[in-house]
């Protein structure tokens, strides 16, 4: 019968059966609302500016990544309900990304830590702030006998007055140990820019370029300041002379997906390609006199044939890119995480930067940034070098007290660093945490901190737009949980323990912030305003504009010692732990909106997967959806294979973000964490972890599973839902 049944009949049958099934359920008849069940609480005293039912927008700063976008929060009846970009913020000009939008779900997250917790008998048990503070006072108060450098702070990227408070605390204790850790960073790029241009974070002007050549820089999703660059990119694309984007990388990123030409490159050979392109440019009449003889020799040694064999890109393709570079001026050449994260990462980025020098981009599309006049507030940009240094200090039992804030090293540290096993070498670990993440759950004292929508702060983004500024963060609503405290509140009380004379005067971070703004006023050219005017203006606009003298780029081209990677027979593939807009480095895995929002390339939701090229899968006999074992020297992960052509055959890509062992109901025990099996190789020059240099082997487990993804299928099954027309036909018919 089934065989003869038509689709329509099937639906009819389903409809009948469906009704019969539903009759047993609680069938809703009409929409009714209960009377007298919900509380409705009036104001005690009416606020003049607050009318129930009418929203008010407040300015603040997003802290979902380190870009520091300005935001407006819609507040109604004392609740923040929506986040949008602040149109006056030079970094994001009124826009936000999905991570910024999802900030609300962090704030209202059901897994927030709501009381202080202390470890008793091996378990974390709730305690009170009074007891927590007594404990802190005992360990760290003025009378404690702690050896200065045995106290440390471990944070994410920290800037503004949060950084000033941490530095003040370390000074008060007499320590210099501040580790700043970010998995998604641009540390090597910054190091190369500092060495070559004397400017660690030059301004990129995609909007002025006619061609972008990006070596793995995912500037639309994860690189430095994605919303800012997306704004520039839209100008670049909509200009009368539409700019062209060429993306060279081993695994297609979101930016790669938008490129006019996407080129798959053998992992770790980007530096060689850059020199090969320089070779092409010099051979085709581009003036290389700005470069030293040594650099010119390096370039001369990279002829097209050689580079083609190293990179696995056909020489005709390299010529095509070279021709585009020469023909479309000005251009800009960028280097992202997959280039930086190699043992020769610095050299490769330097080689890529040489292309900018050769093409005359320095000063046109790579502009000098402003020198921020308050170095104590500048961002301490996190990287992975500090993670390695921290792991070493832990191993050597050099630390007695460590404060963790805004970083989760027990999630992000590779197993090879042995941080998991040795974390208890630190006798007293204090986590200032919003969520029960891996690090907080291993701490001895957990202090619940406010969400960024409940807290005071200032931020100075490492990448500043045309107008330098201090971004202001203010509470958009009252604390949801009475027992949480702002980061500044905790810091002021910690400082008062050491130095009551100076810090005891501030009741909380609000008092501190008001004092700071009063002192700041004259230094930012606002001396004519009254204290209140300056404070109100700053809160209203969400920023304090700062005049920063523009640097001068002094060109010192570095000699890029690009060397080819050796082959590894036992571990033939490169592991690409790719970050993405959404879960990012794993910090947003507890936000359901971002779990639900599909990966930009694979479209997978709520899961981990391993991307591999169909030709590679063919050789290994792996089919789409097979559970495979991806194994490095330091461990193995079992994950579903996802066959996709947008990856180099030598690469296996596992996206970052999943594989949490803690971190609340949405993140815990979901997928795998590729960071765990990384080999602790470092970039020779900067000491950063070479995150993209780990070799792996792949084997089948014999298991099969379903990969849940948006749309589920790449074909339209002949239904022509989206109609297409070939370029030839389009040209002939002009789209008619």
């Amino acid at each position, binding site marked *: 019968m089934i065989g003869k049944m038509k689709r329509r009949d099937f639906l009819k049958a389903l409809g009948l059966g469906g009704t019969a099934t539903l009759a047993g359920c609680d069938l809703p008849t009409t*929409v009714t*609302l209960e*009377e007298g069940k*919900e*509380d409705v609480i*009036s104001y005690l005293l009416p606020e003049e500016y607050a009318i129930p*039912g*009418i929203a008010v927008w407040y300015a603040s700063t997003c802290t979902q990544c380190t870009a520091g976008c300005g935001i407006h929060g819609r507040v109604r009846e004392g609740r923040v309900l929506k986040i949008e970009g602040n149109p006056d913020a030079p970094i994001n000009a009124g826009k936000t990304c999905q991570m910024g939008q999802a900030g609300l779900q962090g704030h209202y997250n059901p897994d927030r830590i709501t009381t202080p917790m202390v470890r008793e008998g091996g378990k974390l048990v709730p305690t009170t702030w009074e007891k927590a503070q007594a404990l802190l006072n005992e360990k760290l108060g003025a009378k404690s006998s702690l050896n200065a450098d045995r106290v440390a702070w471990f944070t994410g990227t920290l800037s503004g007055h949060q950084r000033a408070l941490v530095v003040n605390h370390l000074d008060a204790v007499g320590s210099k140990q501040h580790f700043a850790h970010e998995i998604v960073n641009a540390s090597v790029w910054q190091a190369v820019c500092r060495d070559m241009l004397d400017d660690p974070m030059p301004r990129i002007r995609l909007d002025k370029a006619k061609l972008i050549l990006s070596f793995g820089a995912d500037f639309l999703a994860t690189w430095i300041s994605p919303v800012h660059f997306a704004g520039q990119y839209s100008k670049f694309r909509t200009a009368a002379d539409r700019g062209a984007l060429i993306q060279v990388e081993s695994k297609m990123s979101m930016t790669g997906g938008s490129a006019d030409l996407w080129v798959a490159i053998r992992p770790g050979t980007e530096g060689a390609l850059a020199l090969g392109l320089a070779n092409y440019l010099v051979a085709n009449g581009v003036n290389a006199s700005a470069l030293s003889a040594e650099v010119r020799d390096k370039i001369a040694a990279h002829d097209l044939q050689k580079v083609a064999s190293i990179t696995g890109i056909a020489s005709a393709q390299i010529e095509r890119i070279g021709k585009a570079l020469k023909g479309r001026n000005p251009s800009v050449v960028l280097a992202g995480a997959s280039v930086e994260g190699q043992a020769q990462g610095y050299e490769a980025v330097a080689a890529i930067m040489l292309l900018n020098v050769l093409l005359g981009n320095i000063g046109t599309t790579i502009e000098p940034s402003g020198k921020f006049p308050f170095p104590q507030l500048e961002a301490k940009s996190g990287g992975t070098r500090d993670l390695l240094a921290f792991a070493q200090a832990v191993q050597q039992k050099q630390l007695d007290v460590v404060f963790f804030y805004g970083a989760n090293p027990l999630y992000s540290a590779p197993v090879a660093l042995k941080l998991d096993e040795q974390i208890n070498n630190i006798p007293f670990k204090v986590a200032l945490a919003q969520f029960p993440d891996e690090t907080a759950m291993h701490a001895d004292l957990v202090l619940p901190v406010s969400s960024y929508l409940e807290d005071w702060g200032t931020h100075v983004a490492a990448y500043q737009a045309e107008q330098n500024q201090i971004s202001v963060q203010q509470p958009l609503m009252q604390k949801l949980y009475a027992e949480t405290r702002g980061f500044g509140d905790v810091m002021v009380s910690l400082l008062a323990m050491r130095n009551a004379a100076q810090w005891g005067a501030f009741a909380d971070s609000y008092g501190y912030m008001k004092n700071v703004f009063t002192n700041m006023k004259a230094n930012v050219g606002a001396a004519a305003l009254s204290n209140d005017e300056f404070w109100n203006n700053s809160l209203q606009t969400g920023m304090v504009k700062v005049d920063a003298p523009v640097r001068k780029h002094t060109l010192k081209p570095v000699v890029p010692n690009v060397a080819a990677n050796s082959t590894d027979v036992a571990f033939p593939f490169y592991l690409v732990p790719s970050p993405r807009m959404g879960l990012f480095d794993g910090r947003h895995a507890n936000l359901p909106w971002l779990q639900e929002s599909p990966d930009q390339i694979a479209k997978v939701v709520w899961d981990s997967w391993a991307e591999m090229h169909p030709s590679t899968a063919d050789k290994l006999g792996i089919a789409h959806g097979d559970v495979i074992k991806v194994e490095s020297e330091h461990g193995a992960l079992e994950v579903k294979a996802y066959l996709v052509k947008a990856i180099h055959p030598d690469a296996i890509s596992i996206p970052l973000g999943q594989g949490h062992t803690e971190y609340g109901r949405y993140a815990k025990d979901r997928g795998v964490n590729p960071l765990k099996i990384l080999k602790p190789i470092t970039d020779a020059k900067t000491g950063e972890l070479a995150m993209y240099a780990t070799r792996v082997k792949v084997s089948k487990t014999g298991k099969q599973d379903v990969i849940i993804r948006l749309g589920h299928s790449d074909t339209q099954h002949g239904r022509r839902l989206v109609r297409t027309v070939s370029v030839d036909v389009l040209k002939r018919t002009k789209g008619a």
Partner: protein
Amino acid sequence: MVRWFNKQAAKIAGVTPVHAMHPVSWIAAITLVWFVTSSAGFAQDIVPPVGVHQGEDVAQPIEFPHNIHVEVNKINCMYCHTYARRSKVAGIPPTSKCMGCHKIIATDKPRIQKLTEYWQKGESPKWKKVHDVPDYVHFTHERHLKKLVFDRDYPVEDVKEICAFCHGQLKDMTVAKKAKPLNMGWCVSCHEKNGGPSDCWKCHK
């Protein structure tokens, strides 16, 4: 008032061409106009929604007597529900507004003593919500008052008759009780009779 009068005249003229009207009709029409304009009572040009709902008795933290405030003391609804003309919600009056009068008036009554206790603790009573529509319905008091009261130059002192369209006669209740169905069919029937918008997205957005 003149604007409103013209509108009424136009409406009557629209129903029956003026030249075809019988003299008696003229008298009737003028009488009707006179009656409507002079009577502060019911709004003849607006047809009130029909339908009742037998609401539950809802126990409130303080048994607030609407009847005394509305009927005996003739206090305007919008004196306490001050947000109704400005916002989608009418608003429960701030406790300070209650205390504005009750610091002096009726301080010997147990209900007022209870209110004073709340006030001294710095808390508002936890009132229970009686009238509500689902989250996917965007109802706004402001638009309804604009259309039914202010745009018609309807006497504001009689606004309680307009409020009663949806809330029933509060002058006859102590604590509020749901008296109208407040469901979609009921809303739509009133919109149809009185030229309210019928686009889905006017209410569902």
